[in-house]
């Protein structure tokens, strides 16, 4: 499905991402982890088209998409969420998610789209369904601006989901959630996988990452330092070192 090869991004003298390759299969949850500043967010931005790679390629079902603007990549079925949550806050939850449904339909230049849609039942049903999948259906008619920060993250996933993506890039979806909410959102993310959506997951909550992911890729200094199942990653000495740091004199 999604395949990235040798992806690199250089900012001035800094190699933020340095030859990262990974493959994401259908219905797979792939974790992308690593310490702060290891290049996870930059990788996400490169894949989703928010940044242009300095080198390397990104393919979606065999189509090369690197260098495409993000809205085109989204139209091809790859949608991301943001680390600093972005949601539409001017209307209700349902209206916010309905924009996701609308985004996936036709060009705005077509004058047919300049006619009021009114209470478009089809769009609302699709939006409601996306909210339901993320467990927000009961709040559908509340103003999105009143939603607490953690749930805004969930709403941003629902908005992305409403575009009917095949691949989701989730950037720290569990940050700021309470333990019970974390468990619930994790379960819902697993359900998305069962529905055949592939997910690339950046997350710091290691318990959830270990539980959710089929495979995990670990970055440090912009490079892939390890790749494998959660069990393998949990034992991997270099991963432990990257996360916890080295003890001087101990394993030197």
């Amino acid at each position, binding site marked *: 499905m999604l395949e990235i090869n040798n992806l690199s991004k250089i900012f001035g003298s800094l190699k933020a991402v340095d030859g990262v390759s990974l493959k994401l299969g259908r219905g797979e949850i792939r974790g992308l982890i690593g310490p702060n500043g290891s290049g996870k967010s930059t990788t996400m931005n490169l894949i989703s088209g928010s940044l242009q790679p300095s080198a390397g390629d990104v393919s979606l079902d065999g189509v090369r998409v690197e260098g495409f603007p993000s809205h085109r990549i989204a139209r091809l079925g790859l949608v991301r969420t943001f680390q600093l949550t972005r949601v539409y806050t001017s209307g209700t939850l349902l209206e916010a998610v309905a924009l996701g449904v609308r985004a996936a339909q036709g060009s705005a230049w077509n004058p047919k789209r300049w006619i009021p849609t009114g209470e478009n039942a089809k769009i609302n049903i699709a939006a409601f369904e996306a909210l339901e999948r993320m467990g927000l259906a009961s709040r559908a008619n509340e103003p999105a601006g009143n939603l607490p920060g953690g749930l805004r993250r969930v709403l941003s996933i629902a908005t992305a989901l409403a575009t009917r993506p095949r691949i989701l890039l989730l950037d720290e979806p569990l940050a700021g959630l309470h333990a019970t909410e974390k468990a619930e959102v994790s379960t819902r993310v697993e359900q998305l996988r069962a529905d055949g959506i592939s997910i690339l997951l950046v997350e710091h*909550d290691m318990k959830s990452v270990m539980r959710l992911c089929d495979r995990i890729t670990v970055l440090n200094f912009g490079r892939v330092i390890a790749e494998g199942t959660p069990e393998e990653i949990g034992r991997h000495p270099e991963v*432990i070192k990257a996360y*916890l740091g080295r003890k001087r004199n101990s394993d030197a």
Partner: protein
Amino acid sequence: MLEAKDLVLEYGGVRALNGMSFTASTEQVTAVVGSNGAGKTTLMNAICGLVKLASGEIRLDGAKLNGLAPDDIVRKGISLVPEGRELFPKLSVLENLLLGATVRPDPTRRRKTLERIFELFPVLANRQKQQAGRMSGGEQQMLAFGRALMAQPKMLLLDEPSIGLAPMVEEQLISAISDYSRESGIGVLIVEQNAMLALEYAQHAYVVEQGRVALSGPAAEIRDDPAVIASYLG
């Protein structure tokens, strides 16, 4: 002594700090470790007055800090080396350092501090005229340290100093800083996700989780506590 009591802070509905309390000596290195999103950077910003606490109290040697403007907090003796360094990329090394001394106008003391910083980081002395943005990551981090020391702080706060640095460089830098703190008797509060590195140089440590202190004690003990590894790798 830097004391924080029951700090609570919310960001758009998320509790970044949830009743955090700790004390840090102005003569020692204190480490605050914890995984990402545990509230470490927020803590630093709160101490420096960049974000407002919902409740709680921060005191330095008994004087209340919270509620003061950032420049008054710097004047009281708190200097932050922020995550991402926040240098002035188009200004020269020397200008960056001099800006660090904004709250300390006395020229003789200023010159003395500058000399000590040049001793500590000779690279900076050799590159006084160079644009800060053109230096390597390690040199930039040295400059950020130097700039913070120019304010002659009682307490130096380091926010994730190891980010983006090669292991050799980060170790050198942190040991330089801890030596400096011992010599000049200033406190260091270091926030790190690279826990082992921070714990190596700290005397006392706090492990934070979800905006509150989960564990505290002498750094050496914390280092060998299996609970620490558990809180990182689940």
